[in-house]
């Protein structure tokens, strides 16, 4: 399976003349610290690195494993798979989730599929090609060693899931089916109808429950981690709130794993679950874990548009719809209120087909999203007005229905079209659907080395919660791959190198670090309940979301980001003076839960804006208005920005500190993406 394709080395470009100092430094928004680097990935041929690391990583004797405790926060693909695997290995695992059952983690909502370099179609796929596609798709802002390893273990994931009974789609011969996805040219995506995430998560969940029954994993559902305990420079436990009784609990361990997902809900409206939040990773950030590339967010083009002020979340429809649907808006703004069926062909603008004749409606997610925004900004959006603009474009199946018959369309897309009808009340077989981009995934996250260890020793981060594999843009069907790669195969092999140094000296609850962490959690809970102001938590969250979407969404500019930072600071100040959280601390209190999460989003939002401001280039999902080609496409500046921006917490009143990790491309050549 290994690919022997020769590596091409990039000739370093001549250094560009120094520009003026970055605006963040000028505005006093951040300072720059020492560069950082990953020290764990072995050197040498890229296909040999993971095997070498697995061999070099210290082993833990089976008899010693049960003396070692590992806390894992989150039970999605990354956390659930890791808890099950470490439990099977014999470690003493404590697993936490805020939902009522580990089976509900938001990995469950992923629809399309999971990539793996099996090359079952014999269409030229290979580990190297999956690696190459992922690096290119990430717009050359990810770390080569990590991405290669991801591609390398992808095939093992499929084997593992099949053995667990995951019911992947099969062909009539009984073998696994594949489909193509997300603009790549091979068929490497394994799927279970439109419910791939659900089936993979149930597989991991069942493996986890098996270990609960075996006594190796202790499960804490309806528990939320509110603080990490760092003693003598090492992560040694967490402070969690039992969401049913309200009790604040201390859980100590030899290592802590955060697999708590992404932070898309900083935008209030996103395709994330209502409870998805940044608290676990943000509290760790405040304790010393660097937060990397927070501004890299993915906006997915095919979501159901906002219907009104009451909207609580956005629903994604698989991007596979773009295979047969055609995207258009009226040529004339005057037609935007008309019934689309009455707008003649010559008055329609199939703008993606017009601008990108070779890729048409199948351009990557970031490009499709930005062009939808552009045509709506021009006043040519369709559907109900939200603010001053109509935010929607047509996704039209009329041609497909003529070409394929309604039955064939229903066979292929029936569940998606039904979902559209249920939510909007409109029949997509008769009227073109309306879609608009929505926040979907966050590529940024806590900085980790090749071992998935953060800048706090003993604190590991996996899945969407870390930053490592997708660069500035994630390809479709790669999130499930990364979650399970980290959970089943990577973390269990790397964490042992750390655990081999343990068990660490027992920490008493009276230890200063534990007392401090507990006290800060108690104080925060009491503070939130005592403000008793005029505004609900949701109203702050919505306002923050509007600021982020307007100024740190699909297009960012220096002027807008500076304004956003001011607005967020004002809003955060008001939050701590004027939020109204009713109820008490000693019962189930959903307002209190939300308040803590929104308080952390209010800090994260500012860091995202600072990161977006400092990165004066466009790359992947990060589009700076000041950095575009004459045609309006994203323009990278590899000479200045080919690095990971890892931010250190600068204190409550201090500015964050930027640490740069240079990205070196030894095996893939950096190019400007083109889809024309």
């Amino acid at each position: 399976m290994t690919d022997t394709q020769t590596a091409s080395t990039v000739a370093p470009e001549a250094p560009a003349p120094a520009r003026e100092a970055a605006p963040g430094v000028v505005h006093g928004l951040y300072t720059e610290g020492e560069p950082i680097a990953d020290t764990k990935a072995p050197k040498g041929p890229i296909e040999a690195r993971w095997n070498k690391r697995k061999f070099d990583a210290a082993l833990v004797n089976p008899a010693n494993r049960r003396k070692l405790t590992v806390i894992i926060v989150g039970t999605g693909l990354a956390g659930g798979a890791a808890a099950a695997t470490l439990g099977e290995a014999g470690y003493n695992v404590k697993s936490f989730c805020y939902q009522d059952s580990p089976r509900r983690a938001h990995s469950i909502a992923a629809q399309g599929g999971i990539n793996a370099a099996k090359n079952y179609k014999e269409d030229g796929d290979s580990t190297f090609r999956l690696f190459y596609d992922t690096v290119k798709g990430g717009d050359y802002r990810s770390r080569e060693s990590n991405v290669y390893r991801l591609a390398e273990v992808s095939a093992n994931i499929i084997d593992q899931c099949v053995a667990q009974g995951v019911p992947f789609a099969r062909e009539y011969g009984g073998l696994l089916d594949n489909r193509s996805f997300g603009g790549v040219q091979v068929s490497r995506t394994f799927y279970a109808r439109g419910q791939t995430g659900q089936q993979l998560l149930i597989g991991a969940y069942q493996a986890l429950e098996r270990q609960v029954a075996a006594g190796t994993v202790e499960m804490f559902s309806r528990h939320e981690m509110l603080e990490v305990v760092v003693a003598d420079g090492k992560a040694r436990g967490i402070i969690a709130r039992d969401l049913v009784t309200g009790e604040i609990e201390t859980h100590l361990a030899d290592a802590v794993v955060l697999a708590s997902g992404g932070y898309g809900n900083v935008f209030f409206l996103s395709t994330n679950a209502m409870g998805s939040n940044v608290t676990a990773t943000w509290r760790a950030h405040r304790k010393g874990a660097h937060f990397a590339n927070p501004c890299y967010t993915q906006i997915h083009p095919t979501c159901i548009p906002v219907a009104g002020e009451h909207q609580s979340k956005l629903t994604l429809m698989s991007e596979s719809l773009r295979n047969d649907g055609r995207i258009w808006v009226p040529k004339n703004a005057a037609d935007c209120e008309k019934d689309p069926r009455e707008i003649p062909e010559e008055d329609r603008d199939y703008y993606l087909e017009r601008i990108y004749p070779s890729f048409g409606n199948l351009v990557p997610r970031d490009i499709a999203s930005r062009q939808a925004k552009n045509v709506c900004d021009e006043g040519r959006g369709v559907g109900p007005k939200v603010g001053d603009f109509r935010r929607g474009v047509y996704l039209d199946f009329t041609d497909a229905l003529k070409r394929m018959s309604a039955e064939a369309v229903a066979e292929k897309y029936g569940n998606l079209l039904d979902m559209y009808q249920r939510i909007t009340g409109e029949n997509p077989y008769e009227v073109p659907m309306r879609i608009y981009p929505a926040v979907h995934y966050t590529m940024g996250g806590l900085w980790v080395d090749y071992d998935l260890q953060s800048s706090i020793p003993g604190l590991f981060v996996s899945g969407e919660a870390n930053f490592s594999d997708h660069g500035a843009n994630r390809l479709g069907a790669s999130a499930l791959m990364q979650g399970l790669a980290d959970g089943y195969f990577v973390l269990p092999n790397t964490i042992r190198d750390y655990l081999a140094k343990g068990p660490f000296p027992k920490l008493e609850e009276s230890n200063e670090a534990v007392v401090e962490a507990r006290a800060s959690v108690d104080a925060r809970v009491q503070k939130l309940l005592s403000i008793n102001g005029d505004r609900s938590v949701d109203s702050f969250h919505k306002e923050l979301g509007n600021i982020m979407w307007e100024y740190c969404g699909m297009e960012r500019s220096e002027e807008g980001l500076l304004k956003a930072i001011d607005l967020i600071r004002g809003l955060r100040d008001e939050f701590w003076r004027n939020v109204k959280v009713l109820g008490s601390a000693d019962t189930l209190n959903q307002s209190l839960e939300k308040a803590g999460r929104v308080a952390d989003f209010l800090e994260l939002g500012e860091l995202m804006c600072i990161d977006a401001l400092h990165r004066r280039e466009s790359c992947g999902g990060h589009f700076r208005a000041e950095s575009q080609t004459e045609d309006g496409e994203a323009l990278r500046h590899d000479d200045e920005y080919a690095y990971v921006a890892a931010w250190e917490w600068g204190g409550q009143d201090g500015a964050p500190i930027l640490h740069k990790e240079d990205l070196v491309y030894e095996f893939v050549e950096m190019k400007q993406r083109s889809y024309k």
Partner: protein
Amino acid sequence: MNLTLKIWRQAGPQAKGEMVTYPVSDISEDMSFLEMLDVLNEQLNARGEEPIAFDSDCREGICGMCGLMISGKAHGPEVTTTCQLHMRSFSDGDEITIEPWRADAFPVIKDLVVDRSSFDRIIQAGGFISANTGSAPEAHSVPVPKPKADRAFMAAACIGCGACVAACPNASGMLFMGAKITHLGELPQGQPERDARVVSMVSQHDHEGFGGCTNVGACSSACPKEIPLDVINQLNKDLRGALMRGE
């Protein structure tokens, strides 16, 4: 539209609950049912009353976290989850009662929130295939006939919401359990533990206080994923076979 809501309020697991009436006005038909409750909660918060506790997470019909008894029907009048139910299914002037799932095995925690950890314990009893990470053979080494793979998928679509239990006059968890038995029993990988699985899961189910099945079929009618009743036949068949083989 304007509606009258009658909602179960219960301060805690031991507290006595009661139905409380709340009028709501200017509800848009494009709202989801839970967004309508969000609106009510914002109003309650503004006037100093504690918001109504209810569970929801993905709000796209797949995580299984939400679940309300709406005017006597699990998940309300449509075949879907509570989060995917929209207000256009109701009319101006309607009176709607909203209650938690009612079952001994799902005790109320607060208001509309119940404890469904009994479902997790049924899975712990055997709802899995024992395959340690790293031990798996190549995926194509065991072909699975498509009809069996499709039936396994159909059963695996269960989201564990508990509507089947809430709808059943006996509060039985047989549809939930039958779905898992069918999912794993259709696959070659599920065969080695098949007998032990069904005996152990059924024993746990009964221990949790779920009732037995008397072929009413309300479970399948209420199931948002339309799991068919025949998974219970499969469960009974597997159980009978396992007991006869001395499991």
